[in-house]
């Protein structure tokens, strides 16, 4: 390690707030950048699967009569 202690690594001879602040902010932005499309995909795929299940459970009724299938 380039520092003698964790305390020294945290302070970085006065540059600590700048360096750790920059890394912290970058981490937050990057996590958000990765997380947002994953969350969006998850929400949409849940909706698609729910829609699919609804269509599946409605199917037995529509098989027995062709009239309801057309509606």
């Amino acid at each position, binding site marked *: 390690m380039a520092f003698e202690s964790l305390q020294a690594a945290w302070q970085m001879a006065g540059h600590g707030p700048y360096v750790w602040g920059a890394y912290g902010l*970058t981490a937050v932005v990057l996590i958000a950048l990765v997380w947002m499309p994953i969350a969006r995909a998850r929400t949409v795929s849940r909706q698609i*699967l729910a829609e699919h299940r609804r269509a599946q459970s409605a199917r037995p009724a529509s098989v027995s009569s062709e009239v309801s299938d057309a509606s």
Partner: protein
Amino acid sequence: MWQIIHKMGSPPWFYRFAGTVLRWALPIVLLLLVVGAVWGLLFAPPDFRQGNSYRIIFIHVPASVVALAGYYVMAFAGAVSLIWKIKMADTAMRAVAPVGAALTFIALVTGAVWGKPTWGTWWVWDARITSMLILFFLYVGVMALFEAYENKAAAAKACAVLSLVGTVNIPIIYKSVDWWYSLHQPASIKFSGASAIDSSMLYPLLLMIVAFYGLFACCVMLNMRAELLDTHRGASWLQRALLERD
């Protein structure tokens, strides 16, 4: 090669392909980022002139480099979308914009934070920094322009034109430190000849650049997959893909 390019244009193929790639690529990229950050923060030696504030370059330089390269990707996708009217190309174009905007934002903010202890100021209206700010507005502009149109085909066209026109800015950013007298230091890494940076600092920096490129690719694929899910809700291939995964 052509076959792969052809397949890229097919949403079902791309959706599966990106899913497979992301499953192993995303963990690797995240691991590389953590390793590079710890290396740069704790193990690289302090700079003899700048002390420890220089450690910010391990995120500042990769973010800037990839933000610039990403713009070419976006403009290229825009050109493909304009010329061949391939839907996937404008999906790709729009997937790049938020990633590029975030990276440019990181480059600007970490640059400012580095500038305070090093130059004594957060911000100067310097050629490099101002042209980088314009890059940020171009990315955000492409995102906003798409939302501004009701007709999505017209929106994609307008975005493609904007991203193509914006490429003028990229060589200006590259060359700004040479063309104008600038506070910003010129590049320390050179492809030809000796780099003005010691290998103990160069290796973690190169690692971070690779990691940021990887992250860019992963984020673009994640955005494209989310977009495909959203726009192909009713498609049977998508339902099949989702059911198989469960």
